[in-house]
Every structure is written in structure tokens, then in C-alpha cells.
């Protein structure tokens, strides 16, 4: 199929960007979206133009590196997939596809479709861990029984890949699904209890400091999240912070 692409081009973080139109031809419906981008880039290189920079790595939907806002949606129109798992069969011959970087004040553009998500790193550093040293004589793993239900729920929260689609989608650029998922994973496990109050306080404070917006519960993040992280995690974070503030 033949497509028209409208792509955000921006030389670097200090330069203003703009949308540029490209044409690609003979795209197979079996290609992944990023393979279509590879075809475009090969074409640009052979014409002596600069290829479009975009983040990607594992190309199997788990590393969280790929981003892109495609036709007005984070990771494009398909559900439960990252951009690298999106396939061209979701589009029709002759379509015009708009491709933009993830947008948020806290995610400045580095180049073209590449954004800086280091704000997420700093939130994790503020408390996204359990303080345990690597000694080789930690207590036996089975000495802490955890109900299957809690373990499964913690696992569901922990499947977050940190791609930032929640922020990109949110009309307020809120990072609460991301932070809520991490807070929840530890809040659900007995190992996480000791530091629970400090963790939620510090992570939320860092989140606010990074300039992410407020959650207004539109639920868009949950729909666009490639891993289907539930809004329940935000509710749990709210509870955890209330609990921490009351104690």
C-alpha cells in the first residue's frame, strides 16, 4: 500500500520543529509500524536526506523504548500493543498517518520523535525500591508467604514498561498511572510495608516536582496503556498517600 506520512521533525531540543510530509510506497500489510519507518529512513538516506530519529529497541513490546503518537493516539490505534507491535494492516492504502512525539512539559523532545523521559528515572530513584542489601544471606524466599492474589496483583502492577504512553495520552500530562503502578507493586507485598509511607510521599513529591499534571480520572491512560495497567493502581496510590499523611 501507499501512504502519506505527516511526521514531526525537530533538529534538537533548542530548535523549533514542524510537521513534514513524506510519501512511502509498496508497504506490506505484514510490516510492523517501525519496519515501515525503516523503509522510510532507507529511502531518505538513499536520497541524501536525514532519516527520522525515533526510539526503539526490543521490538517485541517489552523494553518500553518505543513511543510515537500515531493518528492522535499513543502507540497508535491498536489496543494492548506498543508501537513496535503495531502492524500496518491496521491502516488502509492511501491513508495519511500523523506521527508525533509523546508530548508533555516533563518529556522534552530530544530530536524528531525522540523524547527525554528521565523524569521517570528520578521518580523511581526517589523511592521505587525496597532497601535490601545483597549479602547472600537474606532470609529464605519461602519464609515470607504471600497470598497468590496479592502476588498476582503486584505482578499486574509490575508489568508497567515505563514507556510514558499514560503521560502522552493524558490531557493533563499526569504520570499517576506510572507512579501508581510502582507504588502499588510494593504496597501489595509484605516486603514493601516498612518503607511504604516514605516511598509514596517521596515518589509523589518527585512526580509533582517534575511538572507532571494532575489526574482528573478520565481513564485515557488505562485504555492506551500497552500493558493494560489498571486505574485501581492510582486509587491505591491515593489511599497510600492519605494513609502516609495521617500516620
Amino acid at each position, binding site marked *: 500500500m501507499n501512504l502519506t506520512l505527516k511526521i514531526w521533525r525537530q*533538529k534538537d531540543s533548542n530548535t523549533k520543529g514542524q510537521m513534514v510530509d513524506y510519501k512511502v510506497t509498496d508497504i*506490506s*500489510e*505484514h*510490516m510492523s509500524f517501525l*519496519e515501515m519507518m*525503516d*523503509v522510510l529512513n*532507507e529511502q*531518505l*538516506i538513499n536520497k*541524501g*536526506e536525514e*532519516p527520522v*530519529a525515533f526510539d*526503539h*529497541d*526490543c*521490538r*517485541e513490546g517489552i*523494553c*518500553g*523504548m518505543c513511543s510515537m503518537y500515531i493518528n492522535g493516539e499513543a502507540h497508535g490505534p491498536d489496543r494492548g*500493543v506498543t508501537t513496535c*507491535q503495531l*502492524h500496518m494492516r491496521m491502516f488502509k492504502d492511501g491513508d495519511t498517518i500523523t506521527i508525533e512525539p509523546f508530548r508533555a512539559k516533563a518529556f522534552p523532545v*530530544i*530530536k524528531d520523535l*525522540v523524547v*527525554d523521559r*528521565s523524569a521517570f*528515572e528520578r521518580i*523511581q*530513584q526517589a523511592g*521505587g*525500591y*525496597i532497601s*535490601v*542489601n*545483597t549479602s*547472600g*544471606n*537474606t532470609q529464605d*524466599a*519461602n519464609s515470607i*508467604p504471600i*497470598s*497468590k492474589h496479592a*502476588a*498476582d496483583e*503486584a*505482578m499486574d502492577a*509490575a508489568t508497567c*514498561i*515505563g514507556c510514558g504512553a499514560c503521560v502522552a495520552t493524558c490531557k493533563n500530562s499526569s504520570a499517576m498511572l506510572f507512579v501508581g503502578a510502582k507504588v502499588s*507493586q*510494593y504496597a501489595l*507485598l509484605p*516486603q*514493601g510495608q516498612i518503607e511504604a509511607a516514605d516511598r509514596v510521599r517521596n515518589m509523589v513529591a518527585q512526580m509533582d516536582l517534575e511538572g507532571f499534571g494532575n489526574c482528573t480520572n478520565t481513564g485515557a491512560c488505562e485504555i492506551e496503556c500497552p500493558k493494560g495497567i489498571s486505574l485501581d493502581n492510582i486509587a491505591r496510590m491515593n489511599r497510600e498517600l492519605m494513609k502516609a499523611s495521617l500516620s
Partner: protein
Amino acid sequence: MALNSRVPEGPIKDKWTTYKDKINLVNPANKRHIDIIVVGTGLAGGSAAATLAELGYNVKAFAYQDSPRRAHSIAAQGGINAAKNYQGDGDSTYRLFYDTVKGGDYRSREANVYRLAEVSANIIDQCVAQGVPFARDYGGLLDNRSFGGVLVSRTFYAKGQTGQQLLLGAYSAMNRQIARGKIEMFNRHEMLDVVKIDGKARGIIARNLVTGEIERHSAHAVVIASGGYGNVYYLSTNAMGSNATAAWKIHKKGAYFANPCFTQIHPTCIPRSGDYQSKLTLMSESLRNDGRIWVPKNIEDAKAVQQRKLKPTDIAEENRDYFLERRYPAFGNLVPRDVASRAAKERCDAGYGVNATGEAVFLDFASAIERYGKEQAKIHNIENASAEKIYDLGKKIVEAKYGNLFQMYEKIVDEDPYKTPMMIYPATHYTMGGIWVDYNLMTTVDGLYCIGEANFSDHGANRLGASALMQGLADGYFVLPYTIGDYLSHEIRTGKIPTDTKEFDEAEKEVKDRIDFFINNKGKHSVDHFHKKLGKIMWDKCGMSRNEKGLKEAMAEIKALREEFWKEVNVPGSANEMNPELEKAGRVADFLELGELFAKDALERNESCGGHFREESVELDGEQKGEAKRNDKDYAYVAAWEYKGEPADAVLHKEQLEFKDIELKQRSYK
């Protein structure tokens, strides 16, 4: 230089304990004056960085991704082995050690593997304490599954995302140290060379991938944890950015490269759909427990299927060739990875492949659905159940077991695997070979360490399922942080290493010259053009089945391709900006050298063992006729290559492998 593996004396069971008791330590006050560079932040690098920082060293960690959490360890699905014996099924440290050495076809170092098995249990304790949400049973205790044909259930897992959860665990440990200021994290940085001063590794040259700036970083020791080199095949299950540059650079600076030809080709991957394909996706090995692998018996049927004129479901049972069940009646579809991969290739090479490219075989769940359906009908007392009812009941069971994998397959291939058989084909997955290291995980360069998939040490010629995660974390959490102290205890008086020395000047100049060359070359072809060509040579001639003629051709072809690359490569953009094509160019340049050494190593090793199959070394008669034949008399050694300018001129050093605690046996799956 003669290789000294520095394996401690004494019985295998006591080696590690005794060694640890006697190892030199650095006192806490001195640790804060010692810097360590860790390159790569996957399971090995991430866990090492966190643990070293926790001990008090100043760590500088480097990742080419925008976060340590994105390292490709994250994609590991199945699980992690540990000799916990929670299931009480007779597992033990010795048994895990034995399985790993045997699974590796007796080409790994006994002492290292035993140590790995020994610390495996600690890994699980550590990860649980960190909050890794492993699967649990209804009693709240940890659940296990069995994996890869071993006789016990020792694999711990977190859904199909064990690698992700373990990496996030290591990442959280890193974050804690970053917050404490003990790790300085350099995301979006790529190491482009190591700096040696007086024979010791003293720092690295790195490129800031955002600004293009070339940076100098010094340290008292350098740890390489940059993963495997599977992308030398272009198509693999590795991430797009996975590369061998760090490993290859240290090889060129004196670290020996061991057993490069030992690569694992995984049988159950989603096949290539066209020339545009950029990477391959692995489907968990567990699918072979219920799926039957087949191709059409008649070549006409195969051709018709390839042209989509015939549906696989229309091929009658008697016209199907269940080639694994035919060739290996004892193990059937559950033969080890290498055997299954080669058998699929053999059928496809003979023209029986089942997709448009002719490189795919069917993995069929119809009989599993029927079997489960009948079972369920019996359990629920449904008499004279209709075929449809049986199908529905069976489908439910298959869905519960493999639902997420079937869904992933459908997303990629756009076919419903419940209705039509899946198509699979082998793909490069893991590289057992890597930088040679001694018992301390130190390379042949002083102060230069190599851990995780990047080193050669524990998997021999073939890696068992769920062992990669174990090795990465064992190296990073429990081995390196101890053994590195032995070296660093001599460095407490060294003081800060300056970066304004001639060694740094030279290394930086070399790096900059190369970058300038790429930018100014303005050749005719993109980097990918060469990478794809290299991949094709590697796959065709150094793939699942290798012979002398093909390997010699491969060496010549890779050399020619390399020369063409240096003449004709086209890298757009400039050096002082984010430039993904420039990054790729450097990586492919290194693959173009590594590939040739790979072929040379494969040529030199005229035996079939593990993932390395030489057509010249097969059983000539008897029940095993045509199967791989290992040659312990001539090849029970580690082939460690010393760099001498051209890959073809590399010099071989042999580390003889001794097996005192295990009896060597030929594998048989008939």
C-alpha cells in the same frame, strides 16, 4: 600468554567457600576512593553496579538506552533456575551443576558452573526481598515449573515476563544507589573504547548519544556487561541496539574472545515474513509441550501451501510429515533446541517450508485441543460429545495455558492459531561464546572484567532454558563483587586516575577519527545494507549447520564485505548530534570483524557439540546415524582467540577442560 583460569584447589564443593574465605578484601574506608566503570545495565551489569555501589565503591554505569530498565534482559520470558528444591523432587546444587554442564555438551568450566549452581538459591532470596513478584501457589509459597527437558521443577517465574521482573528488581537496587550518589548513571551513552595504562584497564571512551560529545571516564577497574553478539546475524531475537562493540573493543585491546562459534538458535520463533523484517520474535519453548511440528509429506502440497493455494487444515493426516516424531521417537517434539532447529532447517532446505519464504514449519495444536477436549468431556461426564463440543472444551484448556502467546502470534501474523496451525522457524537467540574470563571473571587484561552473556563462562556449547537469567544475576550479585576485591585490594594507594594522559588522548583520537571517517565517507549504501548482507552470510554459512567449505567461503565473503563497507558506507547527519545511523555504523563495523572470527572458530572446531553442528562430524552408523558427534579427545577445550590485526590472523589459545566430577556422555534423543 598462557591462559590461567585461576580455579582454586580443593574439592569442587568447597572451592568457592574456601576461596571467598581467603580472598583479599578492601576496607570500607578505602572503597570510597576506588572507582569502577560498569558498561551495560542488564541483569549482570545492573546487579553488579548496584552491589558494588552498596559495598561502597564509586560506580559509573553506562547504558545506550534511555534507562537501565530497557536492557534486553527485560525480554526474557520463561524463568530462572535455582537449586532450591522447594518441590522436594530431588533437586540439589550438584544436580543443577550436572544438568548445566551436560546441557552445555561438556564445553564449560566445571568450577564456574558449580559456583553458579551454588549461588543460584541466593538469587531467589535476594529477588524476593527486593519485591520481585514471582508466581505463587495458593499456599502463598513460590511456584516452580519445569523447563527444557530436565528432570526436576526448579524454574521460578513471573508470568511470561521473568526477565522483566528480575531486571526491574536490579534496576530498583540501582535506583537506590543512584539516589545515594554511589552510582553515577550515564544513560544514552555508548562505550567506544577501553583505555589501558601500563597493561591495566583504567577507563573508557564513551559517546554521549544525545549530543555526540566524546567523553573520557577513568576508573580503577572496568566491567563489561554488554550482552551477546546475536545481532551478527542481523535477524535475531535480540534488541535492535544489542551489539558487540564493547566486547569487541576490549578484544582488540587484549582480551581474548572465547568460542565465538557457540550460538544458540531457538526453534520456536515467528518466521520472517519478508525482506523488510527487522527482528524476530521468540515464542516460548513451552509451546512444544503440546504442539506437534510438521511439514507436508509431498512436495506438491508444500508448494501449494507456499503459494497459499492449499490450506494446511486441508492436508490429510497421512500426507503430513511429523518429522521430529519420525526422527526422534523417544523425545519427539521435545528434543533439545539445537536438534529441533536443525531438523526444521533440513526440511525447509529440502523445499518443504510452509510460508511464502519457504522458511517455516507448522506447530499444530489441533491434536492437543482434541486430546484435552476428550479429557474434559470425560471429567464433566459428557457422553457422546460432538466434535464441536470437544473442540470448545479443549480450546479452553489450551487458551488457559498459552493464551497470551497465541494472542501475541495473532497480533504479529494475523492468523488465528486455534484455527490454523502456527508457523515457526528457528532464530538466533543467545550466544554462549564471549570474552574469555578466569575464575574471578577477569579477562586477559588486568582490571578488566566481563560478566553475563558477554563472557563465555558457564554455558559451554549450549545453554539450558532459564539459565541465562541465573548466570547474569549470579555474576552481578554474588560473584564479581567478591572477586573484584582481590584485584582492587592492590589499588588502594593508586589514587584518582587522571584522564589527561597520553593513553586517553590516543584512545579518544582513534574513536574520533573513526567517527569522522563515517561522517565524511559519503558512500553508496546505508549501514543496514551491509548488516543485512553480513547476516545472510552468517545465517547461510555459519548457521545451524556448518561445513568446511561454507566456513571458508564465509571468511572470504565477510572480509570482502568488510572492505566494501569501509569504502561504500553512507552515514548521514553529523557527529555532534543524536545520530542513530552513526551508532549503527560503528556497531556493524565491529560485527564485520567478529563474524569472520566466528567463522574461523567454527572452522577450527571440527566437531559437533551443542549449538555448533559440523556436517563432517556426525555418527556414521548405528541408531544415532546422522546425528551430531562430539569429539572429546581433540576438542575438549575452550578456544580463546587473541587479536592480531585481522580476524583471520587471530591466534588460538586453548584452555583444556577437565571433568573430574562428571562423566562425559554423548547425547541421544532417539
